[in-house]
């Protein structure tokens, strides 16, 4: 019987993995993936909580919205990344240090 804790643990792992990816990986697409991971962690939390704790549908609905938003965000993000690639011919994050004091 899978308990709430295990769900939370998994989502926490997802979250941390996402963070680590965003911080460590130099590939911008990978960083976007990290964002996705974090969002999914949150979504998982919502579902789990609404299943085990609150017994209402708020969590489910929220997670649906999250998926939509994540998609939109990814779309915009990727579009920008593509522009970036077209200009710089690289998607290495450290190339993006033109703006600074």
């Amino acid at each position, binding site marked *: 019987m899978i308990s709430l804790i295990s769900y939370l643990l998994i*989502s926490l792992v997802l*979250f941390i993995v*996402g*963070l680590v990816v*965003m911080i460590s990986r130099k590939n*911008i697409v990978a*960083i*976007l993936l*990290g*964002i996705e991971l*974090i*969002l999914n*962690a*949150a*979504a998982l*939390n*919502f579902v*789990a*909580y*609404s299943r085990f*704790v*609150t017994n*209402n549908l*708020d*969590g489910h*609905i*929220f997670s649906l*919205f*999250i998926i939509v*938003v994540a998609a*939109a*965000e990814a779309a*915009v*993000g990727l579009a*920008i*990344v593509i*522009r*970036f690639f077209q*200009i*710089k011919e690289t998607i290495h994050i450290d190339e*993006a240090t*033109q*703006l*600074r*004091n």
Partner: protein
Amino acid sequence: MIDQLFGFLGYYVPEIISIVLMTTLLVAEAGVKDDHAPRTKIHVYTQLMLGIVLVCLLMNLGAKPLHIFYNAVTIDPFSTLVKIIMTLGTMGAVFLSHSSKDIYSNLKSEFSIMAVGVLIGGMLLASANNMLTLYLGIETLSILSYVLSSFKRDESTSTEAGMKYALYGGLSAGIALFGISHLYGVLGSIQFVDMVTKLPGIEGVNLAILLISFLMFFVGIGYKISVFPFHMWTPDVYQGSPIPVTSFFAIVPKMAGIASLVRVSFVFVQEGSPLAISWIGLILVIAAMTMTVGNVTAIGQTSVKRLLAFSSIGHVGMMILGVVVMNEAGVQAILFYGIVYLFMTLIAFYVTSHLSDMYGTDSYDVFRGLIYKHPVMAIIMASVLFSLAGMPPFAGFIAKFNIFSVIIQKKHYGIALVAAINSVIALYYYMKLAKTMIFGTPQGEEKVLGFTTLNQAVIISLFIPVLFLGIFWDSAMALAGNAALFIK
């Protein structure tokens, strides 16, 4: 059931009109070719619609607060006033975008679309009454902002700005969302009203989770209003984005974020709520740090755009001091500050935008000896700078005065001192710019061209409130006070 859904649509007209405007704009934009005339038409249309929105909002201003759409959103004078400020900001930005050379002419109406979209997000955020709406508001704001900031498509800086914004925003939103999910778990609902009722009973592990996740949730708002330490994207994005976008960012998302910050604080942080202890201290520290960071960094800037960006950070630090005191007076001060800040920022960006269009750069040098090139512009700009610095008899002083007054009322003398020192620092860099404009000798003898009478009219009409509210400010204060009344 039905009337719960549609009975209150009347109060929701502004949002609806904005949405209609956005969609119509999309369609129209698809239609037009690359020539200027229709864009002007579109621009006028946009302004008209926004004007209607403004009127509707003004009509809503008197309404008693009510939670509609199953508590999804709250319509109360507070949110309405914030929406008014945002709408005015949008109108200003759109106008600026139309005249600015910083935005490619074939993208001008796209700018309007995005701006209106951000406005909608802001409205959502300002009147959000449950976590879902709030999240959606933030994301709507953010996603469109990413696009706006990368608006100069084939300039690497702009794209980079957009990308950084997107990544940073994504991370912050993600963290916030993670926090929200745990809040949902601990408090068992996403409706503010229900969550609050659960608050007092929380202890033990749940309390720990509550606090941590509330902090995470705060990241989401914090990065929107770019308070320390979530401000780091701001300078880069402001620098990379076109000037109209920068001015837009400096007003609309910030006001929306502050509004939601206020609402969240007032909803969650009440007597007996476990958050109350840490919350005030947190905001105090953040406010102090934010204004200090903003002002101190602004000193070093040579690009006036960056300077204004940092100074806006400083102003946000000032504003959120109004949250600290947790009473109507504080909110009143914030709202008044918002109104004044709107006009001052718009004028400052107008002048900067025009000069940088003319000289191709926005460094101090383009301001040197402006008094000889365009006296009206120079005098108004100088006055606005002094107003931003909080010098009487301009409205900026009254705004500052109110903030001081509320924090001193709660006997936060320490933070008052910090704010005092900060306003001296702020005065310094504003005065440096004013000095350049008035004492400096211009390199070229040429006058400032192309500043049409329309532009002058706009600037002057924006300047009138800055002066008027500095002397006869009781009516505006009353308005803000009335709006602040129903915050709880």
